[in-house]
């Protein structure tokens, strides 16, 4: 059994469990023997320089990339090794905030925010109501019918986070969530993430320089594929 960087109390079931995980891309070991546990409602921040493996770690947890060796369990499942139905169900329990997942430029802000609800089959009345409430929570209510192109970078970042949180996921995985964000948006986003964690959502944030204080956050450092 490899040493865990952080071990949960025995009574807490881990939401994320990595044991000796290795991910190789090409000839490079992007993640080197990572062992890690994160419990429900934890808010963790992973700092690291560009190329340190943060995005790979987030994608590993999301089931977008697979580990070459080691054990990966997220929300009690092995992300990459499930059937179509289980994979769909697993993804609906996640709140993803990745640079690759941009906003839909041919949909308005409300439609962008409620996408996870609509994909999960929520009724029109339900997604309209929850969508407007969420946009108001993120101070975007007045922009509900605007296209994302009309928003500032900070507003777009808030909208992406609103989309990641609207369906109350069990786990939020965010890669560089605060890039190009103004101070006002940063405050709103941190507050919403802290609130989500307080309500039981596990939040994992990865970024180059996430040194700012987020209430209740535990900080880790990823350096050359090793979690420190």
């Amino acid at each position: 059994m490899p040493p865990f960087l952080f071990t949960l109390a025995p009574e807490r079931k881990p939401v994320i469990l990595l044991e000796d995980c290795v991910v190789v891309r090409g000839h490079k070991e992007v993640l080197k023997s990572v062992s890690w546990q994160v419990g429900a409602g934890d808010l963790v921040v992973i700092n690291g320089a560009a190329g340190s493996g943060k995005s790979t770690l987030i994608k590993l947890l999301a089931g977008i990339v697979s580990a070459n060796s080691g054990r990966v369990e997220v929300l009690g499942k092995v992300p990459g090794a499930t059937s179509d139905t289980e994979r769909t169900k697993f993804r609906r329990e996640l709140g993803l905030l990745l640079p690759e997942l941009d906003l839909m430029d041919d949909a308005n802000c409300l439609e962008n925010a409620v996408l996870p609800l609509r994909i999960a089959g929520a009724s029109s009345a339900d997604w309209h109501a929850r969508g407007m409430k969420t946009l108001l929570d993120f101070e975007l209510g007045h922009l509900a019918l605007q296209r994302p192109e009309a928003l500032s970078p900070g507003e777009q970042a808030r909208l992406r986070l609103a989309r990641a949180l609207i369906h109350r996921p069990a786990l939020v995985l965010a890669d560089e969530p605060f890039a190009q964000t103004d101070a006002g948006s940063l405050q709103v986003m941190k507050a919403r993430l802290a609130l989500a964690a307080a309500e039981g959502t596990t939040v994992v944030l990865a970024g180059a320089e996430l040194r700012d204080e987020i209430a209740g956050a535990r900080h880790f450092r990823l350096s050359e594929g090793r979690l420190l």
Partner: protein
Amino acid sequence: MSLALQQAWRTLRHSPLAFVLTVVLLAAAAFVPWFARGGFGNQQEAAPEIPFEFELASGHVTARDSIVNALRKLNKIQDLVTLSPGDVRREVLAELGDSLADILSERDFPAIVRFKLAARNVAELQTFAAKWSRAPGVVRVVYPEEIALNRLPEAGASPAMDRTKLWVIAGTSWVLAGLCLRAVFLRRRATWRLFIWLGCSPAMMFFVRLWLGLFVSVCAAVVWCLASFAARSPMAIEYMELGTGLLWAVLLGLTASLWLVGTGRLEAEG
């Protein structure tokens, strides 16, 4: 379902030129069966009007009426007239001279049903003649057989173009339409990746592809109709009645959507 429908429509709106090209290619492919039957742009050669006369047995007024009614129901019959023995006698005398008036009486002539048949090929012509020569009340079927045989193609042959070429053109059009539709779909690959990673099920992605296929099918069917009306040929109207062209367009559109990229491929790209 509404999300799938909405996304299919937005996908087509996202690439209007490729969308139009897909529809035109599908409509072109759907025209091939019509071409193969000798239609479109070659109507005169494909369906020449062959003059026909049915000589009727004397005293068969009921039979004559039923023959005329049956012929009127066929849309390939034109200029249908009935001539009594007296009318026929007058025609003959007008041609040969009144000097024969004393020799020829009405009883020497049969009643006649005269019309023009738009036949597409020899087999159709001969089948028609053989069928009616056996009809009750019809004594003889008269038509310029030799001229007709020279003007009409053999059964199944296309006067306009070789059939194999037509099917190759149809197949090529269908493949190109499929590839265009695939390009339309892939132009929104970022959106599809977003959908998949947010938990969109393979079933919902299937419905998006199905709706895409249906949209282009219906549009191709409309283009097919408009082009058929523009051609204004009897064959087009016959096809319209049968709905064959429309069904063909829809079938081609739906099968063209098989060229679309599946969920697995989109995931692998991620």
